[in-house]
């Protein structure tokens, strides 16, 4: 891959160093309409953008490094958190992948595993914690509750946390067994390696979009 993406390192690393803008020709832009992710990347690879030779490799290197020390936020909402703890424990041993260091502060974390149902009272905190995690960040929705609200179609449970924050990987189950979470985290590692994200370049947060902020 000869090209870096704006996500991960910030817009400055990709494109013209002087203006900080990504320079793509109109022809390329037109051809990218309705294109898939892979097609976009391919097209951008072909486009000659001056001055990005180093960050391209750097991004690859960073992604490789990050994927071996992705530190989740120490954050469990409900019963699924028990399985998350089991995954981190000695039997399934997340430390094999450098993920065992669950950070108690969002400012030191690389993302969060939302394990369990999120109540309406908790919703603002989930958004706040997500926003406090520095970029780049990834989110795993663990369990049916975090994905869709599960059986709690009630007055107090948010019907899927992707209504609040962008979600990268969904791990279904009630609760998902540690193997399932592990599988999800492997998928996440692939995304980390490729510096792919659920959020778009503008870092749109669905909860903020919903109230027009």
């Amino acid at each position, binding site marked *: 891959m000869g090209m870096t993406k704006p996500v991960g390192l910030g817009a400055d690393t990709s494109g013209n160093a002087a203006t900080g803008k990504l320079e793509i020709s109109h022809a390329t832009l037109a051809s990218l309409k309705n294109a898939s992710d892979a097609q976009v990347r391919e097209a951008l690879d072909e486009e000659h953008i001056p001055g990005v030779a180093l960050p391209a490799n750097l991004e690859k290197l960073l992604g490789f490094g990050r994927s071996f020390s992705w530190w989740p936020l120490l954050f469990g909402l409900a019963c699924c958190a028990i399985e998350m703890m089991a995954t981190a424990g000695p039997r399934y041993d997340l430390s094999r992948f450098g993920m065992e260091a669950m950070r108690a502060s969002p400012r030191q974390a690389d993302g969060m595993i939302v394990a369990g149902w999120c109540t*309406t*009272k908790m*919703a*603002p905190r989930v*958004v*706040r914690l997500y*926003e406090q995690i520095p970029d780049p960040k990834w989110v795993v929705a663990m369990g049916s509750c975090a994905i869709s*609200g599960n059986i709690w*179609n*009630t*007055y*107090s*449970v*948010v*019907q*899927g946390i992707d*209504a*609040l924050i962008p979600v990268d990987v969904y791990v279904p189950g009630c609760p998902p067994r540690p193997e399932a979470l592990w599988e999800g985290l492997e998928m996440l590692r692939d995304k980390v390696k490729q510096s792919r994200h659920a959020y778009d370049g503008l870092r749109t947060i669905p*909860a*903020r979009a*919903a*109230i027009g902020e």
Partner: protein
Amino acid sequence: MEARQETVEIPEALKVVFARLEEEFGGRLLGSSFFRGELTFTVPVEDYIAVLKYCRDTPDLAFERLDSLLGNHYPGRKEAPMEVVVHLTSVSKNTRLRLKVMLAEGQSLPTATGVWPSADWDERETWEMYGIQFDGHPNLIRLLTTEDFEGFPLRKDFPLQGTVGGRIRTDLKGKI
């Protein structure tokens, strides 16, 4: 309850509790039952605080702890659909006691926070979930639901499935 075979012996300590309460409040108590080792009294609203104070302050009873205070809703009971249940524990006597108060719709109950300060949050929750008003409570505001929430979710007539508020079910404006 007569139909059931009572196999549990009534402990001595509970017999004392029963005797003392009957002696003090006599005919005013609305009922009592002993079932599976648990003693329950139904108390009239007027005597509610007096009974609580008596349970706490009488050396023979010595109920030092208010374990929990909660609500119930019986829509079938037309005159008194609401109910407040109080569980007391005596650590020194190793006894437990349950007190029930039956309330009409919209009827309020004096707060128990003056007797046990720990009743504070329990009463807030009972008010929030059942709409039972507690007179004299220092801070009767919502505890578990958000400020924009309407209705009393643990009442039997509250819809089990809710679609209120879209997927997030609360207005996040000003909160994030």
